[in-house]
């Protein structure tokens, strides 16, 4: 039992690693993509929109496989390790989803807020960081928490390229030997993780409830 817990924990470590790295890179990248998509430079915004369409329009599992195998097939380059390939695919995928949430949040802020900043002599970046940003954050917390909780569970898709995340460990170390219960045990790890995230998001939401936006 203890041994199985340890083994599942090592898989859970990989799960957490994928989760954290995806967040660290996809959160800022998503913002860049959101700005690119809203750019008045048409070729850029069309390019971004096409990329977002492709990424959101194909299964994440397929994207993971493409990132892992495509370099080898097309260039003969041995490519990325499975965990690295997983993270790359996840970052691209989630950045696109995040970008749409950002875009919705940014565009929901009234013109008046920007103009108030302008007539008070603020620069564009000051208006964004000092005036708009916190209001956007407040508005996107709910959809973001949804997406981030989905991310926790999507990490299990990394299994298709034999990334040793927790579900892979449960399947390939135990179920394959006829020991089934670690599979359900692994669900407890996800539950715990998502529970903690839910508490964090609730706290954050509460913290920003002092103003209406």
């Amino acid at each position, binding site marked *: 039992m203890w041994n199985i817990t340890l083994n599942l924990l090592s898989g859970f470590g990989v799960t957490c690693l994928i989760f954290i790295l995806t967040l660290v890179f996809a959160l800022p990248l998503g913002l860049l993509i959101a700005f690119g998509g809203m750019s008045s430079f048409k070729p850029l915004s069309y390019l971004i929109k096409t990329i977002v369409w492709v990424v959101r329009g194909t299964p994440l599992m397929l994207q993971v496989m493409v990132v892992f195998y495509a370099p080898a097939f097309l260039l003969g380059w041995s490519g990325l390790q499975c965990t690295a390939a997983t993270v790359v695919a996840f970052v691209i995928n989630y950045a696109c989803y995040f970008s749409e949430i950002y875009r919705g949040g940014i565009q929901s802020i009234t013109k008046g807020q920007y*103009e*108030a900043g302008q*007539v008070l*002599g*603020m620069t*564009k970046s000051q208006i964004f960081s000092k005036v708009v940003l916190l209001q956007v954050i407040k508005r996107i917390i709910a959809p973001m928490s949804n997406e981030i909780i989905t991310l926790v569970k999507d990490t299990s898709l990394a299994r298709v390229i034999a990334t040793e995340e927790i579900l892979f460990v449960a399947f390939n170390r135990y179920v394959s030997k006829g020991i089934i219960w670690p599979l359900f045990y692994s669900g407890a790890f996800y539950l715990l993780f998502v529970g903690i995230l839910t508490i964090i998001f609730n706290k954050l939401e509460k913290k920003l409830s002092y103003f209406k*936006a």
Partner: protein
Amino acid sequence: MAYLELKNIKKSFGKTEVLKGIDFSLNKGEVLTIIGSSGSGKTTLLRCINFLESPNDGSLVLDGETLFDMQNPIKMTDKEIREKRLNFGLVFQSFNLFPQYSVFKNLTLAPTLLLKEQLKKLKKTEKNKEKLKEWFNSEREIIRKNCLKLLEKVGLEEKSYAYPCELSGGQCQRVAIARALALNPKILCFDEPTSALDPELTGEVLKVIKSLKNKDTTMIIVTHEMDFAKKVSDKIIFMSNGVIAEEGAPKDIFENPKTNELKNFLSNLSNKDGE
């Protein structure tokens, strides 16, 4: 030469010509009220003055400095526009307070940001860091004191640490006025400051605006409050279909209208009052 001079301001949105050539001038310390029916171009004119719209033609001279001249257009950087914009303050119809900041922070935010920019510039030349820090702190203290004074002026000093969502509409608009004043603009503009307020709240806002009137404060007010316009203005402009149909002292405008447009406008108003 007048303090503010606008010449031949034209502005179109697509094919619709909203301003068809506006000229007027204003002396320092004067209060100008712009009246007219909805869609006559009042708000657009105010937005052109505040660089929120760029006019298709015309020029604006303030205090001897040409802020824009579309006959000799120069490419202005964002920074230049920003500097020129600071000559004016604008109070919006819908307040546009920053909801995430307290009343006090709403006032201090912009001046503090400007101060920080100055500090950044000074850091390049001034080696003495201690001295800079001292200077920055004293300047910041001045901003804080000034903002407190302004809140007192609009009668909201006890609401300093309240958030906009906790205030009534009238209180919000008074904060917005104080916020515009915090940057000490040469000309303060109001875009229908009471239109979004319940009737019983307009009084407190108009009282505050009236109290600002002195020899140093130059104001341009777009409003539908005719009684207020009558009392506070030195000069009234009546706009109709993108042109100035009539202008003059309050007495001339209200008691002796010359054009049919103004006569109709005023009689419609009094009919409404009679209802």
